[in-house]
């Protein structure tokens, strides 16, 4: 069974990574590195693909970020729900597609399926080192924005479908949510769809994360930082 390396050393060493079909929720306060932690987890390793749904940054800014952080751009696809708000005429290409707004769940679903199809058909990028099924990391940055555009119940139903598809594809899903902006009901509903929850907190002397849902792994707070797009645990 293929497993997804996380960059979190003790998960990778003890468990050889995260099993396919996992869905990981990052709960992080604003102004923290939670979003970057998501990108570090979504970074495609050799033979893998990453699909990013951005509701926060424009694709052009993300591509710029990927260039600086040694992200494998060739194996990364972006569904951009931001740019069309200001540049309606922008057109899709193989690796970057656009939807009209974060409220357009129909469009998001279609672009997601179409990118998955092109990856599975070997049309997305050169597939010299292709694995089958192709390992895919799908990152939604962020649920916070989607929840501003759509009702909780609707988003829950939508994510229910997406997480089920990721399981069938043997992919992993990564989602970030600002835990300061929503009530317990929202957080608890979102957690229901997930296997793993990574909580992030910021203190005076640094940032910490805590992992829930991986059996046999410490649930203590651990200091971390993101360096060149990679997660570094400080402990």
């Amino acid at each position, binding site marked *: 069974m293929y497993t997804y390396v996380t960059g979190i050393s003790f998960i990778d060493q003890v468990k050889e990574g995260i099993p396919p079909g996992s869905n990981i929720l990052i709960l992080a306060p604003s102004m923290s590195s939670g979003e970057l932690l998501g990108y570090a987890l979504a970074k495609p390793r050799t033979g893998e693909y990453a699909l990013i749904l951005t509701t926060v940054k424009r694709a052009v800014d993300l591509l710029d970020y990927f260039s600086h952080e040694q992200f494998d751009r060739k194996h990364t696809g972006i569904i951009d729900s931001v740019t*069309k*708000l200001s540049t*309606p*005429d*922008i*057109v899709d290409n193989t690796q970057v597609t656009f939807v*009209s*707004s974060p*409220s*357009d*769940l*129909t*469009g998001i*679903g*279609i672009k*997601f*399926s*179409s990118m*998955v*199809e092109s990856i*599975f*058909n070997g049309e997305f990028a050169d597939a010299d080192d292709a694995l089958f*099924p192709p390992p895919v990391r799908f990152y939604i940055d962020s649920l916070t924005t989607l929840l501003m555009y*759509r*009702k909780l119940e*609707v988003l829950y*139903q*939508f994510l229910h*479908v*997406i997480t089920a*598809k990721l399981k*069938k*594809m*043997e992919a992993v899903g990564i989602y970030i949510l600002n835990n300061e902006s929503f009530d317990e009901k929202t957080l608890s509903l979102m957690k229901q769809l997930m296997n793993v929850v990574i909580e992030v907190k910021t203190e005076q002397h640094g940032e910490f994360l805590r992992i829930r849902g991986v059996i046999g792994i410490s649930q203590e707070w651990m200091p971390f930082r993101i360096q060149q797009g990679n997660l570094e645990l400080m402990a």
Partner: protein
Amino acid sequence: MIRTGITGLDEMLGSGIPRGTRAVFSLEPGVEGRLFMYRTIATVLTDKKKILIIAPHSSGKAFCSEFPGLLELVDPVRAGDVVILDSRARDSINFQEKKLQSRKKAWKTLIQETIDTHAIDVVFVYFDLLYEDLGLDGALGVLPSTHQKKKITTVVEHLNLEGDSLIARFASGKHFDLIISVHSAFTLVPFFNFFTLEYVSWSEMPRRSIPYSTGNRSVSLYIPKIIIMGPASSGKSTFVSNASERGISVDRGDPDGSRTTVAMDLGWLHFRGFDITIFGTPGQPRFDPILPQLVKNAMGIILIIDATRPDSLIRARELLTLPHAAKLPLIVAVNKSDLPHQMDEVMIRESLRLRDDVPVFFISSLKRSDVHFVIETMVDRITRHPY
């Protein structure tokens, strides 16, 4: 009639959607079903109708960018064949009206005024956000009434996150005259899309599912694989050849001058609005190991048997035990029936242990009309089969 512009679908509906009715395209998440609405909009515009598009999920410009040529038609200087109520209309109503009832009223008034001012013929509604803002009954309530003096046709696209229960509500409440649900058969990957005609108020049409493919912003009804199988020398290659507009065959010449299919026959045809691919399998038992792979993902099986060879029925029965075969629509075509033969339908049914609903046709593969009749029946059965 309002045509959808989708060949095959319009024919099934009796040339389109009648004026003054309501239709809904109910989309499963992730399936490329937007083209149903796009094609209908494009066709209605070609037919010189005036349309209102309610697209609360998008800015007007972003919506038009998905639709080449639409922006020019929205141009108010040209008096506008197209009016769009976009996300600004929604934002404005939600900002000004804080109560649900007043929001409903505001939407209803805005839509009716737009219809009257611009002499609108057809209203296209992207329903999700109206549903979310107003609830199902509220959102249905703001759609143009079907009892207006001028017959307004309403076409709705909806992302269905509730599945069959919502379709059942639409149908039982008679909210729509036409309900089409759009799905994707998703295993590891979406390997084919299909739509289901769930309900048609103006016709006694059974519920039926039809696969489709998309490309060049159009929807083509599509049957990716029909299998033609049968014992050796039963006439499969002739059947495939006469059914197809073009095709290839991988044959080997035997010492006696006959030819044997050693891999498969492959044929393509466009029939009754469907793009169809047919696969003829080799009949020799030594090729049996490849049959399960060929049958995989097939949508129907046509079993060809030779009317003059009762001894081949044992082999035909053997072929029907293939994995997957039992779950697919099946037709038995008794070939060479124009030659002297003793086999009759009762004998064939008993020998092959056929279900009562499996049709048995006596044909000659040499006659295109016979072959096309079998294909037509198979298409009909595929469209009624619950995959």
